């Protein structure tokens, strides 16, 4: 073949790219959330699936509409709004009214994400900010009672809630039930099964979507601190939103440090804050506020944990 009729492309190196894309990463996160979604459907029934579907649809639609209005490229194809939708739904109780789901999602996507510049520019995790917004606006809807079809019971308090209010400790589920989340445990839609969330976490580790530092150190910090407060470490790490938060939300790229040292500090900070809120705070659970606070601290942490650049002596590095 002659090259006379060929037009050669000239661009700067490198001329090849890795396969992973933003959307393939976000899709992996969605896949990793499926086990927890399955448990939610099994325990809470179809209502849980409807809430997730509603949140995903609202997030994607509000992202598309906002971007259209702001004359930005519509980027819903990157799956990041889907992830936000699932995560926000996972943080809601199953009795959450439909309008509250919609308000939370619109707040997360429009205010927290798009108004700050879209993907990569939000300074806190949109799903967590959405949850915090709902919790402070309609606290009764965010806690309250719920009917669990699986066990045919109406429950009112989460295990951490029972602990906080000094209720009947005999009502606390066993460690095994807490870990599996299949039986007699009440909590937000996606947080009840530590096992399902761990499976998702392992998948993300294998796919190299996340590294071990933030989840392991965050959960480890809580486990190590528990005995100091005379708490059962297994109960502490399997209860509330810790697994969901540590694996799926504290690891959000945009709002966590990129440096190895920074990730360690950030994760320890999340763990400390979570324990302090659980033990001393007004709320029974502190995962989402802990992560939000550490999100805000991320730029500061990064500033002081810059890696030592090759060719600079140790003491000279900033």
């Amino acid at each position, binding site marked *: 073949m002659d*090259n006379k009729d060929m037009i050669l492309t000239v661009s*700067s*190196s490198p*001329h*090849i790219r890795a396969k*992973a894309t933003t959307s393939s990463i976000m899709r992996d996160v969605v896949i990793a959330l499926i086990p927890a979604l399955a448990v939610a459907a099994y325990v809470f029934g179809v209502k849980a699936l409807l809430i997730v579907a509603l949140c995903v649809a609202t997030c994607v639609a509000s992202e598309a509409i906002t971007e259209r209005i702001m004359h930005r490229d519509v980027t819903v194809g990157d799956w990041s709004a889907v992830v936000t939708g699932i995560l926000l739904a996972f943080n809601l109780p199953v009795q959450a009214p439909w309008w509250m789901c919609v308000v939370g999602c619109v707040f997360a996507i429009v205010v927290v994400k798009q108004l700050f510049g879209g993907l990569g520019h939000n300074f806190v995790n949109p799903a967590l900010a959405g949850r915090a917004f709902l919790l402070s606006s309609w606290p009764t809807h965010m806690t309250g009672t719920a009917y669990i079809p699986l066990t045919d019971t109406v429950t009112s308090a989460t295990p951490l809630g029972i602990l906080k209010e000094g209720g009947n400790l005999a009502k606390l589920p066993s460690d095994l039930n807490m870990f599996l989340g299949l039986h007699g445990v009440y909590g937000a839609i996606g947080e009840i099964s530590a096992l399902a969330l761990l499976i998702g976490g392992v998948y993300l580790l294998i796919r190299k979507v996340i590294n071990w530092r933030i989840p392991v150190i965050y959960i480890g910090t809580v486990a190590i601190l528990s005995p100091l407060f005379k708490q059962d470490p297994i109960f502490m790490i399997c209860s509330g939103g810790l697994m969901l938060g540590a694996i799926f939300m504290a690891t959000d790229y945009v709002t966590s440090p990129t440096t190895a040292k920074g990730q360690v500090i950030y994760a320890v900070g999340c763990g400390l804050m979570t324990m302090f809120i659980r033990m001393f705070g007004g709320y029974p659970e502190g995962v989402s506020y802990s992560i939000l606070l550490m999100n805000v601290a991320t730029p500061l942490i990064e500033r002081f944990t810059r890696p030592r650049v090759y*060719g600079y002596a140790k003491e000279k590095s900033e």
Partner: protein
Amino acid sequence: MQKTEICSFKGGIHPPYNKELTNAVPVREAKEPAVVTIPMSLHIGAPCKPIVKKGDTVLMGQKVGEATGFVSSPVHASVSGTVKAVEERPHPNGNNVLSVVIESDGNDTVDPSIKPYEDFTSYSSKEIIDIIKNAGIVGMGGATFPTHVKLTVSPDKHVDTVILNGVECEPYLTADDHLMQDHPDRVVKGLQIAMRALNVQKGVIAIETNKPEAIQAVAKAAEGFQGIEVQKLATKYPQGAEKQLITAVTGREVPSGGLPADAGVVVMNVGTAAQVALTFETGMPLIERYVTCTGDAVKAPCTMKVKVGTPYQEVIDQCGGFSQPAAKVISGGPMMGVAMQRTDVPVMKGTSGILCLSKEAAYIPEPSACIRCGRCASVCPIHLQPFLISAFAQKKRWDRCEEFHALDCIECGSCSFICPAKRTIVSSIRVGKRQVQAERKKKAVKSNG
């Protein structure tokens, strides 16, 4: 001596290597080119001054361009024949460069002044460096830095090790792999000559683990030679980048802004070493080299022995030509190679590969927003934070680029390769580097004036 441990550096990537296209295909000698174009710039540094004119008869190995400074290197006729023109011709760097165009008479009559040298041990360090200089030997890994300059180390620097770079971490390329298998004795001899020129007792030949045959061949050739070791390195890009290689082999770091000599090391490509040995063996200057012509747009990819000055198109044609329309023809490998506008440019002293990629293989997706995943930082072999530097460069914050050490970037492209948002990170860092350098120059002028 072959060391058993495998060394490496922190960071780096694992691109698809695609070396199987050519690594098992025996090396072929390219057909005698009818016309060669010898640019006066086949190296980094001052261009040569032509010393022949149109109509002159030249012999193979005859000098046709004289070096014009210390950091410069003479160029020689790679064929015998008649000078057809001395004029500007397209150069792989994208510009037109003054070149000597020689029509071959097909005889390859060697210049009678070219004679084998005596055993290298009978020459002093200075004599060796002069021989290398006159033979127009430059770094054949691609950077084409004149070898005699590299071997002239200022006396305040204490060099104790010569490392031969046989890493060839660029995907697709197998020129050094084949060279080490075909001429392991020359590689070892070249190393000994360089060690003598530098008065150094330790030589290391570093090869990536994905070239077991080359490791075996070179280890066998190095057997029994005092102070020469073969070091296996992990297969990872950019293992062959000078700084990463030095750190992997010696554990030392080249200080920022410094030279390998500041870490007590001189690094040479294995091809350069083999050429040095060949020059001592036969007297012939650098007029020929191994070139890997490969890619999915080439019918029969292979590594070939090619005369300097042969047009790219002729090399491609000898590999069966294009099997499908090539969207990109790259001089060198896909990570750091330069995309060519045309294929009539000549093979140079640093042309390790001619990579022809189809539209599919050359496809680069559109960039999207940075998601701060940190992958670029974790693969950066210099431990920079590429996403920050590139963002500062796009905002024209040159001061911030400098603060985040843009000037230390080695432009290996690992960040752009790994980026899931497909951002052209290294390209923006390059812009930042150039601006930082320009600002520094401005400041220097101001403070001097």
